[in-house]
């Protein structure tokens, strides 16, 4: 062993190198306060190890980036841990860097002759921030995509060359494959290489001048090895423990695959940039322009830090005091703004709703990607675009929620509210629906409500302005054709027979009729009781009720009940009563949304706009109908909670 070392030493001088590296003197003894630089080097080593591993499985293109990160996170051995380590070590690095910088200024380690090393440190800081920025985009999820959009748009605010800088960063006018390949080259190649180079210089110059001793009389002098190394190693172990714990118990997030066509209202930068984000949202800052807030102010701050050695040189002790005061003020400002941003987001209902949707989309994307059919060639984004569970709520909110509601909300989990009048503050009032709540459309409850509770079920219609107008006309004695939940043949049948319908002798008949109607809607995967359905069918077509109801059949008005939809297709068809053929089924619903005013539906009583393919494409109609009829692979992702109890009954 010794012979081998001698042989090696003769040729490389390894002993001298080791000696120089390890046996540096630490005046005043080893101290915990000296560990920060070492923890930074350590986190960088962790980033290199985990980064190379992630590189071995990552695929930078807009159709494979999210997919490969998904694969790493959810399929590969220890993938979640490796990605988590990389994710949290990056954040640890920023935190440790801030501590390191604070300490350097407080201890005066920037003073002559260490100015150059101070500036080298600032270069390293820029590189680390560049790494965190480029890394945030690489998973190509909604979160990274929209947050990085903000950053590249800020770049475009650079005076004179803004547009060119942005185009260069993006690899084109818009985000695409080349944005990822370029960001990846920066993140895994150029920036780490620069970091290694500058880190070597930083450590070399550090060793040249030695440690900035805080208090030489603190204790007897010690050696770097093993005294300080032990403290450094223990500190690194603590960092590793924190990062590993986070990686295991709070795996790094992967939001839904990036889709430029899908808004992402929950966009926020990584938490350590939140202070800047919040700063830019001050109206006073906004008024001064993006260039001022996002480029000039940070530039001035960096400039002030950079000239700290000169400030101290010129002003002496007063300069050092100023520098320290500036750092404390800056730190306080960052903390206050960060806390403020978190506090405001937590109390911002819009942001919370956007977060809920983001989590729902993310969970669904991951769920679909895990399915046996895996991810198609056109990427995970296509999985979501073709998924009724994801698209249905959006289409509903866009096209239907101005009148209808879905369990009280707009389909996307948000209450529909009126705008606050100028000068008003507080909660905006909830807007009343003016059409049925479709959250339980074509379910057994829905069918039962129509049979036994018709007026109440459609009471929302009475909030509509057309209803008020029609009632006024009616009061004047004019003849109006409109849907009146309180007075129509159906309403009269239900209310007129309310007692008979609720009588025990008809209890099973009602259940059977509901089961039959529910079976007619043919919801995918619905489990129906065939005997009850048969019984319900004879009730509907023959009216074999008990007591006073006997002989009243649905089919005496709804003559196509029990037939598949469409029973009759020509436009003139219909006998003045809405068709119940395949009522609530996908075929019925598709036709109803396109032609609610057809004779087979509500005819002249209809007030719902007919959605032509120009307003609602066939693809979107299909997604909407499949969502409303439950025709999609089930989901374990939590759906939006019902908000029915938050709807006021009256204006």
């Amino acid at each position: 062993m010794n012979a081998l070392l001698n042989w090696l030493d003769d040729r490389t001088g390894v002993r001298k190198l080791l000696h120089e590296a390890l046996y540096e003197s630490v005046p005043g003894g080893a101290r915990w306060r000296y560990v920060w630089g070492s923890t930074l080097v350590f986190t960088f080593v962790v980033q290199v190890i985990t980064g190379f591993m992630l590189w071995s499985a990552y695929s930078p293109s807009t159709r494979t980036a999210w997919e490969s990160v998904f694969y790493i996170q959810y399929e590969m051995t220890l993938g979640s841990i490796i990605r988590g380590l990389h994710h949290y070590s990056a954040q640890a690095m920023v935190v440790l860097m801030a501590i390191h910088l604070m300490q350097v200024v407080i201890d005066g380690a920037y003073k002559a002759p260490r100015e150059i090393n101070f500036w080298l440190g600032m270069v390293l800081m820029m590189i680390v921030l560049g790494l965190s920025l480029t890394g945030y985009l690489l998973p190509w999820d909604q979160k990274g995509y929209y947050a990085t959009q903000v950053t590249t748009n800020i770049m475009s605010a650079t005076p004179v060359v803004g547009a060119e800088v942005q185009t260069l960063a993006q690899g084109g006018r818009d985000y695409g494959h080349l944005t990822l390949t370029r960001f990846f080259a920066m993140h895994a190649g150029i920036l780490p290489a620069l970091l290694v180079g500058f880190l070597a210089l930083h450590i070399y110059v550090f060793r040249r001048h030695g440690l900035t001793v805080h208090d030489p009389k603190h204790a007897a002098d010690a050696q770097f090895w093993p005294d300080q190394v032990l403290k450094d190693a223990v500190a690194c172990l603590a960092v590793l423990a924190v990062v590993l714990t986070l990686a295991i118990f709070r795996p790094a997030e992967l939001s839904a695959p990036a889709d430029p066509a899908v808004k992402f209202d929950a966009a926020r930068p990584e938490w350590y940039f939140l202070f800047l984000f919040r700063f830019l949202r001050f109206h006073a800052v906004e008024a001064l322009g993006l260039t001022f807030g996002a480029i000039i102010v940070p530039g001035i701050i960096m400039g002030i830090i950079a000239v700290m050695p000169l400030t101290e040189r010129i002003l002496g002790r007063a300069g050092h005091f100023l520098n320290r005061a500036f750092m404390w003020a800056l730190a306080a400002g960052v903390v206050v703004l960060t806390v403020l941003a978190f506090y405001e987001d937590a109390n911002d209902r819009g942001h919370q709703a956007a977060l809920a949707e983001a989590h729902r989309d993310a969970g669904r994307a991951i769920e679909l990607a895990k399915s046996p059919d895996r991810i198609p060639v056109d990427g995970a984004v296509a999985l979501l675009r073709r998924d009724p569970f994801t698209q249905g709520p959006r289409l509903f909110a866009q096209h239907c929620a101005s009148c209808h509601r879905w369990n009280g909300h707009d389909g996307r989990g948000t209450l529909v509210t009126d705008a606050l009048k100028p000068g008003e503050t507080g909660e905006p009032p909830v807007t009343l629906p003016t059409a049925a709540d479709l959250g339980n459309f074509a379910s057994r409850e829905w069918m039962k409500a129509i049979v036994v509770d018709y007026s109440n079920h459609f009471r929302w219609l009475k909030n509509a302005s057309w209803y008020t107008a029609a009632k006024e006309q009616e009061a004047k004695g004019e003849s109006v054709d409109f849907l009146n939940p309180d007075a129509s043949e159906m309403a009269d049948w239900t209310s007129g027979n309310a007692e008979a319908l609720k009588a025990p002798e008809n209890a099973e008949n009602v259940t059977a009729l509901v089961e039959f109607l529910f079976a007619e809607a043919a919801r995918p995967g619905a489990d129906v009781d065939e005997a009850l359905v048969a019984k319900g069918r004879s009730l509907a077509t023959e009216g074999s009720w008990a007591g006073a109801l006997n002989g009243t059949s649905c089919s005496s008005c709804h003559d196509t009940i029990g037939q598949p939809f469409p029973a009759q297709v020509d436009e003139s068809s219909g006998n003045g009563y809405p068709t119940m053929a395949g009522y609530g089924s996908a075929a019925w619903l598709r036709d109803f949304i396109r032609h609610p005013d057809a004779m087979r539906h509500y005819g002249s009583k209809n007030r719902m706009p007919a959605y032509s393919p120009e307003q609602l494409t066939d693809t979107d109609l299909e997604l909407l109908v499949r969502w409303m009829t439950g025709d999609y692979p089930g989901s374990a992702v939590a759906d939006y909670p019902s908000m029915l109890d938050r709807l006021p009954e009256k204006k």
Partner: protein
Amino acid sequence: MTVTDSNPAPGNSADTTAAGCCHAAPSATPRRSLLYQGLTAFISTIIVAIPASLGGLFFLDPILRRQKSAGAGKAGPAARKDENGFIRLDVTREAVPGDGTPVSVTVFDDIEDAWNRFPNVPVGSIWLRKVGDGPILAFNSICPHLGCSVNYRRAENDFFCPCHTSAFALDGKKSNEVPPRDMDALEVAMRTAGKDDPAGSEIWVKFQNFRRATPERIPI
């Protein structure tokens, strides 16, 4: 447990104080005790060893995965594939020439590639051969030597691989010493409407690839 001569503290107490607080023992060149150095070396090693070994296991995923979840999470078989892995070909018995001339046929199947699934794509090609009314023979067209493609040589009336001159007779037997084994014959089933029927005209082949450069046939 040795304490350096210059260290006045008795026994282990020097170690405990040093590790516990900042009060370092007075020393210039003399080292701390071996235990102290050992502890430092140990912690320094594990802080690198932990991320490195986690990374190493991650890198070994392709090997670990096979043991962990062989065949797990597979989708249902493609429409033209049965549960035993037989795949229906486009050609029928009648389309294979009766004079023994081999024909090359592309095999279609679903491919699962990491996160993607490609339904019904070409997965390989095989040689089919029939003599008179005899059985259909099927060979994987990948050379068992080093994985190039075996061609039919009309002039020589044999199979020949242009890469390293492996040659095989039309019944798949190797005819020179280059390949380690005969061509890889594949199981064939004749069927009618998917049911086994020796006189049927549907050709179903159990398509498999085998390790190259070994005398034995080892499915991949």
